């Protein structure tokens, strides 16, 4: 096999991928009564894909990614309330503003170590939350109420059952997923992984490392903003909860569950985490976090590869 075929082979869409996405797009109709959670999963998955771009592919640690999610959420909610109720235009505006905000924040992650980056990203998240709490036009601690969304494409009203919402979020997720896949498989994506694996060498082959960090951080902020906008639009509500620290932290857990540096990691992580959360909290409403915690510990101790292959648990060589 020559070089071109090798590179092409490891980067093309596998057969199961379109099948997976077709099934995903069918779920709001087949599992109509679960449309709300499907919507939530799609939103979290998009948020996770965004974090994976910086954490998994470029090696930028962040515990403040919710800042961009929240930025998108509030932008979409305020836009719908004060300017126009069309969801797609609102989504576009939210993406543009969070991207710009990401570009500004990218200045804060250029220098320093992983630890300082963690602190800075947490700091930005806290500032945003306090601003949303304090400012008048955001509705403060009560959240932004009275958001009324127009119909999607002028035809599909957001229904109470959440079918339109789920379908909308899934479609937006798919579009961003395709773009993200294109990006990570490109020359640009390869230079990001080079920066992640060895920053010193990346510089020594002529990659402008800080420029790369800035660009991908900005792009990821835009994608996170899209996820936030979807949440605000499909729930007709934005509250300071979107900036909460636990959102950024949960997101990291979810990537750990699904796998870092693999776009489907965010998607699988979102499915497993949300379904488990939903299921456990219906069985044991008070103590469900115990079981999530236990699952995470077992997952890390045993390893994802072995956990999904029960036949390797007992006996065998390794």
């Amino acid at each position, binding site marked *: 096999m*020559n*070089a071109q075929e090798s590179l092409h082979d*490891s980067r093309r869409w596998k057969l199961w991928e379109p099948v997976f996405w077709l099934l995903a797009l069918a779920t709001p109709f087949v599992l109509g009564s679960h449309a709300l959670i499907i919507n939530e999963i799609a939103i979290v998955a998009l948020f996770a894909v965004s974090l994976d771009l910086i954490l998994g592919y470029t090696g930028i640690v962040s515990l403040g990614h919710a800042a961009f999610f929240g930025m998108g959420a509030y932008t979409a909610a305020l836009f719908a309330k004060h300017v126009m109720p069309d969801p797609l235009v609102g989504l576009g505006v939210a993406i543009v503003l969070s991207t710009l905000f990401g570009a500004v924040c990218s200045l804060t992650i250029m220098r320093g170590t992983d630890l300082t980056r963690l602190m800075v990203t947490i700091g930005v998240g806290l500032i945003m939350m306090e601003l949303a709490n304090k400012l008048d036009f955001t509705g403060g601690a009560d959240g932004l109420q009275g958001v009324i969304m127009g119909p999607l494409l002028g035809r599909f009203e957001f229904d109470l059952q959440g079918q339109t919402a789920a379908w909308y979020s899934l479609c937006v997720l798919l579009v961003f997923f395709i773009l993200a896949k294109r990006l990570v498989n490109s*020359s640009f994506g*390869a*230079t990001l992984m*080079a920066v992640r694996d*060895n920053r010193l060498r990346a510089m020594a*082959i*002529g990659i402008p490392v800080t420029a790369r960090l800035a660009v991908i951080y900005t792009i990821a902020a835009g994608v996170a903003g899209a996820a936030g906008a979807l949440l605000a639009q499909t729930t007709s509500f934005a509250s300071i909860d979107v900036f909460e620290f636990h959102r950024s932290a949960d997101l990291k857990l979810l990537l750990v569950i699904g796998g870092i540096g693999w776009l489907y990691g965010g998607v699988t992580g979102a499915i497993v985490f949300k379904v488990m959360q939903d299921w456990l909290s219906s069985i044991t409403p008070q103590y469900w976090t115990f079981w999530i915690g236990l699952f995470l510990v077992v997952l890390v101790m045993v390893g994802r590869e072995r956990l999904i292959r029960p036949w390797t648990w007992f006996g065998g060589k390794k």
Partner: protein
Amino acid sequence: MSSPEIVLSAQGLVKRFGGITATGNVNLDLRKGARHALIGPNGAGKTTLINLLTGVLEPTEGRILLQGEDITNLAPHQRVRRGMVRTFQINQLFDTLTPLETLALTVSQHMGLGGRWWQPLGKRRDVTERCEKLLAQFHLTEVMNQKTNVLAYGKRRLLEIAIALACEPSVLLLDEPVAGVPAGEREELLQTVAALPADVSVLLIEHDMDLVFSFANRMTVLVNGTVLTEGDPDTIANDPQVKAVYLGHGEELAHG
């Protein structure tokens, strides 16, 4: 014979770390197509000098010219674009990528495609053809699809140099290319170093005297951060000063 043009020139380079002078007033000229060795005992400041030349460290004083252009204040990646590329004494590779991916991304970056997010890596024929050539030249074809972190040490060492050549340097700084390579994998490496393109000017840092004397046509001896002497290999081999401080008390010097 007129001397070929100077491609890289260090002029009065000084680097102090606090009170310690790691590099003291070093002048060094690298001529076009040179095979120039930089030798000196441990702690002589060879790697510091490389770090100054490549921009990893900022000199306290002095300046660096590349093809006559002052590059003293340029960032490392900007020097690479102007044709000065280095290898590392300790392998600096992209562990989770394959040799093919590594070279493909390096070649793409070199061709100015590194910022293209829509074009799949290796889509362009000229990129992959260059990769195939490099893989063959560095005996990496059969392992091109394995993850770099599982490769044998000798192969990793070859990849280390292949990456540098993928940037098509006009000036190549080799920092101890055969360091730590087991005897069985050594020959392959020596051959590739000997077969470097003639128009590439090479500055070689090496402890292995066989390699130094078989490779270099000019040598600079660095001691305590300053240049002790410079000359052709024969002159250096017979210099009593060099024998005394570096090669160990007047013993016969082995020619490679």
